[in-house]
């Protein structure tokens, strides 16, 4: 049982951004007391149903924010098969250290998560880790071959909350159309990794002046946008539910905006690195900037932020993609794509967007907790009375340098390595259980 006092609660789900006190009982929010008014001891004891105050943990959150736990709909935990990069335990540790209480683990493991047994394995490994809620994403097609559909209904029964061949674009439009139709049986969104292979070719960064200067093969913006357009049209035609992963071009933003106006059931996410870095930041000998979709240009970046602020784009997601140091210590063209995101993403956005006045804290939490929870029908996303107590106590003044040693993730492929950032979670609870305190994992089973 917990009594949280004097926090600044940011909970767009209840329309609250105000001083507040909260009482937590049996893993759930028992009471939210808004405003300057303090709860009396009698109220606390009565609500929690205890006789003495010493049975209640008390946390004074003066000067701190309390957020509903962040929900990240796009992480790669690499288990089974590539545990040298990450596993579900290390990934879960990284998640809660970064303020994420729920994550969607993508299916591009080895083997691909395309059967119920594998879905259940991922879910159980998440439960064994006992930190963040780990929701499996099932594959759309068997073995990511882009042809035969998986047993989506059975996968859902095993715990899958969405379907995706993320890591690869589904090249056949007909396969995508059928998948959108069939997924209606589950009600789950199909997460589309939009990448036309013929346009992306052997590219390793966004096509433009920067790629020409570095002599790196370019990926045109159209490699993403043409497939966003295709999938928007297919979702419209089928009435299916599509979610566009890692939107990175202004053209994709225009298409999604139009699709929404037409009433198409489409949602979309943006990765923090696409908001914070551009192709001009890419250096030949720092492969932590190599990511797919590639870092956009300045105009795209402005369109992405605008899209998030006007509601065209629904949520933030890290696309946490850990890789080993050896894999990344290669010439740029030979290194794998991916940025390790969970532990620096919130601080990086806080520092660059919130502190610079480009985004309000309320919007940030709407995008990273409320909206993803709603779209994927997950628990959490708000701290209304009766909701699970997935919570983040956030210190806006906490400064910390991102170092290889401090990361809970097995990997260190982040462009923020060795950089100091401001604004970090200092306490995290999942279902009322404290899992992170003072930047350290606690309470692991």
């Amino acid at each position, binding site marked *: 049982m917990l009594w949280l006092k004097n926090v600044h609660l940011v909970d767009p789900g209840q329309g609250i951004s105000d001083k507040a006190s909260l009482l937590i009982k049996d893993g759930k929010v028992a009471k939210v007391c808004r405003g300057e008014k303090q709860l009396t001891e009698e109220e606390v004891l009565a609500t929690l149903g205890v006789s003495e105050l010493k049975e209640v943990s008390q946390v004074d959150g003066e000067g701190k924010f309390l957020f509903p736990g962040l929900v990240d709909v796009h992480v790669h935990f690499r288990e089974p098969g590539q545990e040298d990069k990450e596993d579900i335990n290390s990934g879960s540790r990284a998640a809660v250290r970064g303020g994420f209480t729920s994550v969607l683990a993508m299916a591009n493991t080895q083997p691909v998560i395309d059967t119920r047994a594998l879905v259940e394995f991922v879910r159980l490994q998440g439960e064994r880790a006992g930190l963040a809620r780990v929701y499996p994403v099932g594959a759309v097609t068997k073995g990511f071959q882009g042809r035969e559909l998986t047993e989506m209904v059975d996968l859902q029964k095993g715990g899958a909350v969405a379907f995706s061949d993320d890591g690869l674009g589904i090249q056949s439009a007909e396969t995508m159309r059928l998948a959108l139709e069939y997924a209606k049986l589950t009600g789950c969104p199909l997460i589309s990794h939009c990448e036309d292979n013929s346009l992306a070719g052997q590219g390793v960064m966004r*096509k*433009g*002046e*920067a*790629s*020409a*200067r*570095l*002599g*790196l*093969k*370019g990926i045109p913006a159209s490699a993403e946008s043409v497939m966003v357009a295709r999938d928007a049209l297919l979702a419209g035609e089928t009435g299916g539910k599509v979610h566009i992963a890692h939107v990175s071009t202004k053209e994709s933003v225009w298409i999604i905006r139009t699709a929404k106006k037409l009433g198409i059931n489409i949602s979309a996410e943006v990765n923090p690195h696409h908001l914070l870095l551009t192709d001009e930041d890419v250096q*030949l*000998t720092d492969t932590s900037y190599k990511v797919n979709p590639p870092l956009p240009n300045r105009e795209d970046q402005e369109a992405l932020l605008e899209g998030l602020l006007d509601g065209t784009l629904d949520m933030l997601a890290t696309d946490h993609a850990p890789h080993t140091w*050896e894999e990344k*210590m*290669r*010439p*740029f*063209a*030979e290194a794998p794509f991916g940025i390790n995101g969970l532990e620096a993403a919130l601080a990086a956005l806080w520092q660059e967007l919130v502190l610079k006045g480009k985004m309000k804290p309320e919007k940030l939490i709407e995008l990273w907790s409320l909206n993803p929870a709603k779209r994927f029908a997950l628990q959490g996303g708000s701290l209304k009375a009766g909701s699970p107590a997935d919570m983040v106590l956030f210190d806006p003044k906490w400064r910390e340098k991102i170092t290889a040693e401090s990361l809970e993730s097995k990997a260190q492929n982040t462009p923020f390595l060795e950089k100091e950032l401001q604004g970090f979670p200092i306490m995290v609870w999942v279902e009322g259980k404290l899992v992170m305190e003072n930047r350290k994992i606690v309470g692991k089973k």
Partner: protein
Amino acid sequence: MRWRHKDLLDLDNLSAQEIELVLQSALSMKEVLFRPIKKLPTLRGKSIALMFYENSTRTRTSFETAAKILGADVTNFSVAQSSVNKGESLLDTAKTLQAMNIDLVIIRHACSGASEFLAKQLKAGVINGGDGQHAHPTQALLDFFTMKERWGEFKGKKVLIVGDILHSRVAHSNALGLKKLGAEVVLIGPPTLLPPEMSYLGVKTSYDLDSELPGADAVMALRLQLERQQSGLFPSLREYNRLYGLTREKIAKTGKDTIILHPGPLNRGVEISSDLADSVQSVIEEQVTNGVAVRMALIYLLIGGTSNVMA
């Protein structure tokens, strides 16, 4: 002026004066090439490793000849072709070279940035012998040397670079350097091989060779990789040759005593006609000779001590 670089990776971070210093040093090196005994003791006891991850007879031989004339010991590392994910990683190769105390490494690699990657790992100097589509600074420097021998200076000279600009590290390094030296550069090719982002070089681009020919002091043809046709980048050798192939008739339109350059090897009858390649205007063979002199100069500047005056 003193040479202050450990490596030669690109022309980006060389000033016009530094480029001139290389060219000036190469002039005295060229004289050595025509001595009856082509051997200097200058770099005796220095070790140089050649690592060519891409096929190249002429560039490798040029470097090897240059190093040997200067008296250095040369080791050819046999490295597998396109060894992506195969064999030793470039990082481990770098560690091996470091452990052998090599003085200078010359690398050619299909990945842009491979030479910079190596340079960051090594105490030894690194010369970029061509990296991906990125840079080929020694080729550009030998081209400048060849032009300077003819012209004396670059100001007011118009240089056309014709062909597959997109994939050509030779074109990129030439355009960068010539701009610094004060020449006017025009990049010419079909739109599929001359995409808009080439604007980063800050020089004129054109799809029309004929309209750019008048007044050109030098025309450089680039080697066309014939397999680009299969990728759809140009429809046929026939049409390519008609639009961008250099011939005596086309070159006559310059109205000048234009010199013709080509980094080699030639596709005769594709990007350049045989009679033009073998004509008096062609400096293609001189480029090869000058390549050795320029590479001698660079090796000397990088590991021969601080003086730019030859013994």
